[in-house]
């Protein structure tokens, strides 16, 4: 039986870091998916985005973001499904990890898939990025896997970063 809010899988990054990770064989028995991420990249003194690829599709993703940087708000678009400026390796804050929730409603439907992402980075300084994001995967395929890749392959996702996938079951 699927409960309203069920844990599906968890992955925590070990020493050395990773460039990507994937949740494979996602059960098709839920209504929505929630992905919780506490992560940072090895990019020094810069924030680093993560890319999400449903079914490892390298195309068909688009994103619209409202972003605050600690002093001003802005909005932009990106041709991928993006968790923008999650967290870099800020030299003075080595233990700081960004926090994100990715909500994917109706992930098995035959329609294109919408993503809602709220994410924050932190820093003991003025600059830190907060993003409200809407993304679209322009595919009618059911989502069976989610691959998360560092936005710059020169900078891996660091140790202790964690990725947690949950399923939400609506009453039908």
């Amino acid at each position: 039986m699927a409960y309203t809010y069920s844990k599906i899988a968890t992955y925590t990054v070990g020493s050395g870091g990773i460039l990507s990770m994937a949740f494979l064989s996602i059960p098709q028995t839920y209504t929505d998916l929630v992905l919780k991420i506490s992560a940072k990249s090895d990019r020094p003194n810069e924030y680093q985005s993560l890319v999400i690829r449903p079914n490892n599709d390298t195309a068909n993703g688009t994103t619209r973001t409202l972003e605050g940087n600690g002093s001003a708000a802005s909005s932009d678009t990106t041709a991928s499904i993006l968790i923008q400026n999650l967290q870099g390796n800020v030299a003075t804050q080595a233990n700081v990890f960004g926090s994100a929730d990715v909500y994917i409603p109706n992930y098995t439907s035959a329609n294109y898939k919408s993503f809602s992402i709220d994410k924050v980075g932190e820093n003991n300084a003025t600059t830190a990025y907060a993003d409200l994001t809407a993304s679209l995967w322009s595919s009618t395929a059911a989502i069976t896997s989610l691959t998360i890749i560092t936005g710059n392959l020169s900078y891996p996702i660091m140790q202790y970063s964690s990725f947690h996938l949950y399923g939400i079951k609506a009453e039908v």
Partner: protein
Amino acid sequence: MSSISLKYKSKSGNLTAPGDVDLGAMIPLATVTPYTTTTTVEFNSVPGNYSHLQLRALVMGSGYSTLRFNADTTTSNYRSHYLGGQGSVTFAGSDANAAYFANSGSANGMAVILDLLDYSDTNKYKTQRYAQGWDNNGSGEVYLTSSLWMSTAAITSLKITAVTGTFASGSHFALYGIKRAGA
């Protein structure tokens, strides 16, 4: 002495023993509903066996409040950032020396959902992420807020303090634990 009742585990109505009941990933831990106006709300002895915490609140009354962990009152251990909108303009900013919990301009209440991932991971400073907002039929604000507690200690208590104003009757604070896979 507390007791556990048998629960229905499936829609078919099969009764199961208490030890067999899997309540899913999101578990209610505690709820605070002030009977009268108050200025502090505390959750103590937070169990460490969940992966994440989520605090859902309705904060009644105007004013702003702060969040403290493990009774740490050293203000330099906290920092906040925010992205907001007022209906016609957007803004962003940061504040040193505080983790702001809510900042409501309406007696009708402000809704807050706070996510605290990996709250017991001693390799991490603790990053909080809030979605919050209030509307007062003509005015209002919506925020995506973050705050940072610069400590690697596992979080065992949370204290919300009204710095200005109070938490009026009708306020509601509910803490949930969210399990990880395999837990």
